[in-house]
């Protein structure tokens, strides 16, 4: 489990992140969302024991961030994928992975097996000795992810894991991350890709130099936006808007072309009444859907609010 308590980092007069308080349970995929300069990478670096917090505390299992004697233990438990793949471009994929396997103290046989399996999965086994400098960005990113996982870490920190990948490669990486979750690994992801976070994260924290909001991506949207129902009809009479607004459970009503857009107090109870009322009015209801707010809507709204 990762516990952060008012974690703060300043660089001179600039505060990168302030009062970052959070608990990330084991086996969870946790996303840190925020614009550039929001302090996501700084937070990840603090948790990786690469930089020391200015204030506050954080614990990974029983080890404390910022304590020199715990730093090595924490680094051994973490697999980090930084923003840039940072591979040794003149060396082959095998040597890149083998180097890190050795530094993490992975036994030779397990290391060889792991590298072989990973490179075979990535379709790179035949090209294992080619300098990685000649590989595509996506390929490099995959190798870098494999490098972060070479020692089978309990905690995996991924900083923009799909940023440089084409859609197909990004999909493979996302599926891979979900596979890791099934193994019980705890994954912390920094990302700008909101749809990605929505798809794979159990929890997200919106960050803008401090935590703006934490929660499940879907629940966040529900908490922020009133639930809206779109009712598509063959024809909408001009008097409908006035009539339906008079119903006491209807909070707001709008007409957009052949769609009636409604906000009601309690959709689960009120929606059937609305539909019955419409049918009684002799209207032909074609579709009824609930308008979903994406994480992007949540993100933009919250970040906008935080900037005010």
């Amino acid at each position, binding site marked *: 489990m990762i516990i952060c308590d008012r974690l703060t980092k300043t660089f001179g007069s600039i505060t990168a992140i302030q009062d970052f308080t959070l608990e990330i349970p084991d086996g969870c995929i946790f996303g840190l969302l925020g614009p550039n300069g929001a302090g996501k990478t700084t937070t990840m670096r603090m948790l990786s024991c*690469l*930089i020391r917090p200015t204030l506050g505390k954080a614990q990974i299992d029983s080890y404390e961030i910022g304590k020199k004697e715990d730093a090595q233990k924490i680094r051994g438990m973490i697999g980090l994928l930084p923003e840039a*793949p940072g591979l*040794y471009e*003149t*060396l082959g994929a095998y040597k890149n992975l083998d*180097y890190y396997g050795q530094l*993490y103290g992975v036994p030779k046989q397990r290391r060889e097996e792991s590298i072989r399996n990973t490179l075979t999965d990535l379709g790179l086994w035949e090209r294992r000795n080619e300098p990685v400098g000649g590989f595509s960005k996506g390929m490099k990113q995959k190798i870098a992810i494999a490098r*972060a996982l070479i020692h089978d870490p309990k905690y995996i920190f991924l900083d923009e894991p799909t940023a440089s990948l084409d859609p197909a490669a990004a999909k493979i990486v996302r599926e891979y991350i979900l596979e890791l979750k099934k193994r019980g690994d705890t994954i912390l992801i920094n990302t700008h890709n909101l749809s990605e976070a929505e798809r794979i994260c159990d929890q997200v924290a919106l960050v803008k130099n401090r935590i703006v909001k934490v929660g499940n991506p879907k629940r966040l949207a529900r908490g922020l936006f009133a639930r809206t129902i779109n009712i598509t009809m063959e024809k909408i009479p001009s008097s409908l808007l006035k009539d339906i607004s008079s119903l006491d459970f209807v909070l707001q009503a709008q007409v957009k072309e052949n769609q009636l857009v409604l906000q009601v107090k309690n959709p689960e109870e009120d929606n059937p009444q609305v539909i019955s009322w419409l049918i009684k009015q002799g209207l032909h209801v074609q579709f009824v859907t609930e308008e979903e707010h994406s994480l992007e809507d949540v993100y933009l709204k919250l970040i906008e609010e935080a900037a005010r």
Partner: protein
Amino acid sequence: MHWRNAWIVMRKDLDEFKKQKLVIGSIIAMPIVLGVVLPLVMFVPMVTMVPLERQWDVNGLLQIGSLPDDASIPWVNQSVENASFNAMVLKHKTLINVQLTNCIIVSCVLDNTTIIDSTIENSSLSSSYLSNVTVIRSEGSALDGSNILTVSSNLRFTKTKPSEIDQVLPLMFNMVLMIFIIIPATLPTIIATYSIVGEKNNRSLEPLLATPTTDGELLAGKIFSAFVPSMGSTLLAFTLGVTLLDVVLIPKVGYPLLPNLTWILSILLLAPTACLMSVLACVLVSSKVSDVRAAQQLGGFIVMPVVVLMLGVLSGFIFLSPVMIVVFAGLYGCLDLGLFYFAKAIFNRETILTKWT
């Protein structure tokens, strides 16, 4: 500190280094040019043009040849045959079939003579047996050994002052030797300055620093990965240089002059400590700057202790004797140790990762 981790870092760096053909080329070419070609260019004209004739060292001869107070009264201008003498001073004699022990022999003609523990001056030797004898200015063919039947191992010839080559060689050897100290101190600026800041620029430093490797292990690995090729290349140039210098000089002086004790101590003690100092300085600078060029310029500046030694040698203020080599190697060794602990103390992952100016 786990040396295994330092070893892993070093091997990876060497693997990367092996792929950089141009860097390898310069690492090999520079020592070859400075340590092999340049000395040959200096020595070949010298040995072909400067005469090797040795002149009699008259002043030295008078000093060495002064007789002790208790010497016996000399026999002068006599011819002695089939005799045996002990503790005598023999002057202007012709000695045939004579055995001499503890004698001082001046201006004699010795034929078929056995001389033991004696001093011979101004004499001509022929078919003589010499044992524990100091020969001073003995003329004729005797001294080239053709007419001396046997000589003891500690026979000492102290009769001549050096030839021009004899006078010039030690100075030139000193200069060439300095090249083999300068080379290992200069080469690391090509490799070591890149070690940390290069990784930072390639963005490979962050995942490396995120491993459980300690600062000491990382630094040690980086240091050895610059030290090994620098010293390897120096040793290659040294071996080649010494061999070729001997090939050039043997026909003139008659025996291999190099490597002598000074040269052996230099390559085994002074060159490695100077190299290590340079590597440490460059790695230290590399961990403190954010640009490879800045690291190279500063790294080159920090090899000043080696430059001081070079200036001392070139100006004639310092002569590289074995004792001097050991003194400087000890000094450099202490500096190396201090530099390592200093580099370790100021190695800061946070600064390295976050500072870009």
